[in-house]
């Protein structure tokens, strides 16, 4: 109302991004409380470089995104309008647009990007498919190499997970219970298995790689986690009862099928037992590769000491946990659940709350998670509802909604739908045909997601 006196609030602008830092400190500014994000963004732009192309900024007050007017924000958070607000501005999240998709012959179960120490445009994308083949792609969508189907005596070869160990080495595993290390030769564009690692009785759901310590962790449906070495020499002998030749029936089948080349088989360095249900995801702690975290269908998140193979800590949640990623700067682990949300768990012993925050928005089980390489608060999740969602833990749902344990509830920042659905079509909650099985967020390539629609979809924010 025009008649009402304009309430002004003192603010002090700051940013963590060096490139958009103000040249001289603007000091305390008085702004009207009726302002919203766009006006504040324009204000920062005018202070920054008045002539240049305006950059959209997100405005954070006390570490929370400003989604309403300042007045409403202050009221909602109970802040007096007389205190000086520390307003942080950051580059606004640019919606990642569909860049390209790589078509496969079968469902794509896993995807990984190698962008470490490579020139821009030379990144390699690895995909694992239900047809049992690994494919290496370049960013323009050409298949650089395809692995040959492994000979495992007529058994299922579907791959569930794959990771780059280095730019030459790949680890992949699937429903045939075997973790395989592949060698990728960039020059000959050949992809061949170098070693087969036997430890699991049931399918392998997830592998984690620590290239610095040359260790591989594999999470399996047989409720165990196995620790492997990437080097063949280091690995012990494979357990005989798991080898295809161990039983008469399977040995016969193996014999019948043509064996092109023999791949050495090795066993696990150690096996972590403790979970009571299939282990869905495993992760080396980003700061310390002697610590690993794992999530399981038995609702628990366990912390393991890799060297002693002992379970250090167990966090029990209310739902089956299906995926895991770490937010190292925030000391949080994000776990995707079968109950359609993402739980942020503080794994440190000091944390008393089971769940620090809940991110809600998915309509089906959250089976893949990766963190934003450009932001310590960013997160991307892939779900069986056919979407990948981008989250920012600072984006809290308005209205002060709380989760089951009284924790804050986060809101989705951006939703990436499958391109294969076509424009405007929304996937149903059961995500039939478009389920996302894996998602990776690379700083250069963007958000890479793989799914039931037999393709890898690359989404990138253009204009950054």
């Amino acid at each position, binding site marked *: 109302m025009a008649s009402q006196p304009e309430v002004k609030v003192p603010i002090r602008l700051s940013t963590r991004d060096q490139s958009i830092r103000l040249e001289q400190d603007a000091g305390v500014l008085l702004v009207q409380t009726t302002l919203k994000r766009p006006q504040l963004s324009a204000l920062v732009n005018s202070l920054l470089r008045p002539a240049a192309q305006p950059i959209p900024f997100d405005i954070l007050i006390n570490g929370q995104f400003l989604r309403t007017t300042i007045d409403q924000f202050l009221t909602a958070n109970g802040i007096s309008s007389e205190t000086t607000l520390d307003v942080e501005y950051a580059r606004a999240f640019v919606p990642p647009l569909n860049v390209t998709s790589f078509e496969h012959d079968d*469902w794509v179960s896993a995807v990984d990007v190698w962008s470490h120490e490579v020139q821009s445009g030379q990144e390699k994308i690895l995909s694992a498919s*239900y047809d049992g083949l690994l494919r290496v792609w370049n960013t323009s969508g050409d298949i650089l190499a395809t692995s040959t189907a492994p000979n495992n005596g*007529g*058994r*299922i070869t*579907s791959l569930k997970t794959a990771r780059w160990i280095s730019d030459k080495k790949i680890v992949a595993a699937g*429903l045939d*219970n075997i973790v395989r290390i592949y060698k990728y030769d960039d020059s000959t564009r050949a992809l061949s298995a170098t070693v087969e690692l036997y430890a*699991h*009785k*049931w*399918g392998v759901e997830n592998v984690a790689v620590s290239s610095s310590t040359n260790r591989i962790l594999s999470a399996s*449906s047989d409720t165990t986690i196995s620790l492997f070495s990437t080097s063949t020499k280091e690995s012990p002998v494979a357990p005989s*009862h*798991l*080898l*295809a030749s*161990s*039983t*008469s*029936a*399977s040995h016969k089948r193996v014999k019948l099928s043509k064996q092109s080349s023999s791949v050495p088989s090795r066993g696990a360095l150690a096996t972590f037992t403790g979970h009571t*249900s*299939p282990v869905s995801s495993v992760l080396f702690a980003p700061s310390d590769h002697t610590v690993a975290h794992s999530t399981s*269908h*038995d609702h628990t998140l366990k912390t393991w000491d890799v060297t002693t193979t002992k379970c250090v800590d167990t966090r029990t949640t*209310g*739902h*089956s946990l*299906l995926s895991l990623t770490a937010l190292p700067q925030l000391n949080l682990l994000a776990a995707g659940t*079968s*109950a*359609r949300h993402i739980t942020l768990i503080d794994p440190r012993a000091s944390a008393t709350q089971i769940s620090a925050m809940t991110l809600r928005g998915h*309509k*089906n*089980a959250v*089976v893949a998670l990766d963190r934003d390489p450009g932001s310590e608060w960013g997160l991307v999740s892939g779900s*069986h509802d056919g979407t990948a969602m981008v989250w920012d833990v600072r984006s809290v749902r308005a209205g002060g909604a709380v989760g089951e344990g009284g924790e804050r509830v986060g809101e989705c920042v951006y939703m990436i739908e499958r391109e294969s659905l076509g424009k405007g079509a929304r996937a149903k*909650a*059961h*995500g*039939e045909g478009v*389920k996302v*099985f894996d998602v990776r967020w690379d700083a250069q390539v963007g958000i890479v997601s793989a799914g*039931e629609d037999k393709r890898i979809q690359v989404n990138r924010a253009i204009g950054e």
Partner: protein
Amino acid sequence: MNPRKRKAITREAPPAESDSGEELADGLLDGILSHSEDSSDESQDEDYDSEDSSVIEGLSDEDDELDEDEDEDESGFESDGEEQRIREQLRKLKTSDSSSERRNTSLNLGDGEEKGLEDQDDSLKPNYTVTTDANGNPRYLYKEIDPIYDSDDSAADVTNTIGNIDLSYYDEYPHIGYDINGKKIMRPAKGEALDALLDSIDIPKGWTGLTDPATGKPLKLSDEELDVLKRLTRNEVLEDGYDPYPEMVHYFSGVKEIMPLSAAPEPKRRFVPSKHEAKRVMKIVKAIREGRIQPYKPPEEREEDDEQIHYDVWADEKPRPEKSMHIAAPKLPPPGYEASYHPPPEYLPDKEEEAAWLEQDEEDREREFLPRNHDALRKVPGYENFVKERFERSLDLYLAPRVRRNKLNIDPESLLPKLPSPEDLKPFPTTCAAIFRGQEGLVRSVAFDPLGIYVASGGDDGFVRIWELLTGRQVWNVKLSDEEAVDSVKWRPDKETSILSAAAGEDIYMIVPFTILSPDVEQASRDILDAGWGYAASQPSTTTNGETKEPLGKWSRPGSRLESKGVLVQVTVRSPVKTINWHRKGEYFATVSPRGQSTAVAIHTLSKHLTQLPFRRLKGIAQTAQFHPSKALFFVATRNSIRSYDLAKQELVKILQPGAKWISSIDVHPGGDNLLVGTYDKRLLWHDLDLSTKPYKTLRFHTAAIRAVRYHQGGLPLFADASDDGSMQIFHGKVVGDMMENATIVPLKVLKGHKVKSRLGVMDVDWHPREPWCVSAGADGTCRLWN
């Protein structure tokens, strides 16, 4: 006597002649003298303060006024004897009064009176002037009243200064002496003058001049009453003819008569002491001696506050609002100008307004009447709606109920039992998480593997398929039969091995889906299936007469095509098998073929490859059979009853009567004490085995037949049913360990998603071994995972 008061009275009266005052003065003087001589001794005893005297004083007061009134018409009146007598009395009363007065106030008072009279005369003359008013009538203009306060002091001036001289010396003169100023003190009125005045007044009979306080009318005294008054004043006997001292008549005397009145002899009781009295006296004496009668003791004064509690019953009473049921009618606003019969012209409606008002519906009208102008109130016509309104009001009153009905205001919700909210009973499946597509024709059966990773399904296309649970990926399949549908698939309940049993037609297949198994699991499964080969051949069942009996079930290898896919054992029975149910240990499984009559229910021993028929003859058509989860009990459901048998003792334990027409499926609670029954007549029945043979609860929520019911086997208090209306219903069914409490059953969720095809909806349902997830088999060719 206040002279001023007298003045006031005289002023009211018409003016008197000035010289008449002179005459009066003479008369007065005479009267005083005569009075003092007449009755000084009579009034001496009179009490001054007595009631009588005051009355008489009042009378005398009236007399004074009468005296003055008398002045106007001096002419004598003829009066009868009675009148004369009253006057006489009155005069006497007055004189006694005045004489006493004088006695008390000495002679000077008499002088004061004279002076007062003189003053009166003086004041009479200049008190007013007579003029003529407009009409020519005389008008009296009164002077200002001069308040005289020194009347008392003037008493000294009126003193007769003649000294100690007999007044008889002044007998010839009209005056009786001189005052201090040398003026003559005129003689008071004489008796003749007063008599003349009194005679002139016509006094009505019995007139007293008093007002009757009871009636407010003048009090009239009759002759008798006057006589009584007179006697009273004289202290005489009130009544006439009363003799205060009559002659004494001696009726009884001490003289003994010669002739007594009665000749009867003296009765004995006159001289014999009374026995009765003696008895009563003795009784009292005895009582006194024994102390039963105590001499009277005055009650000791108790202290007020000892042990006597007074309860103030009304201490907390609150004043109740008077007539609380009464609700006053709302106060109407006062009528405005427009309600007037002659309103100001601006309130009068013009023609348009009037037309609009008339056109409006009666209920919409802003006001009930139309302002109308009438010149005068008498021209206002009668109210035209009077009869109508009165009739309607009467009708309202007639129709209105006169009885206050006390309605019971009970919230029907409060009568319902308190069920926990479904929100509190989470987790339970709510949404479809995955669709398993790829089958042709309807899916008849679905089953979770013991680890909860895979789901097996079998349907009309003859295929058995295995699916990855969360993704819905089909990982394995085999076609068992070209013609027959796969009616039932069930995993052997063992986590170390992975054996799937499937029934297609008359055959039961044991399958090891080795492509998804690791070699050691595959080998363990194979070992279990292969263990029984040759057992039947080594121990052929023979009848008593030595003939080899045809085995009930033929255990064989299914052929290389199926064997290469992992189907290792084929058991052929005599009639199509519809359901398979495993014993918890995985050693036995029961099959039911409803059309098999005597061979309907068979129990197969896996390790021996043996098929047995537990029942020679079964009453009714068997529908399904199940092992008890912990005891050696076996449940067989026929069309409308369920029998439980003890396998160890080989006897019938119980017959449950669900009251259903056609049972479709049963499931035993993992606790073993409760049984769920689904029927084709749309009912879901919960049997508590400990309670009764009748259902504990009947749930009738479906609109079509219920095909399958299933308890959650992994510890969650959930159960689900699958119905032909295309929906599944999830219930919370908590069974408490102790016997005291009944199971709590709460409907949680209706899961809709399956399409109804040829009047078939959801064919089967199974629960995940741990999680609150269930998978359903639909007639639309899909399986769905719900979580």
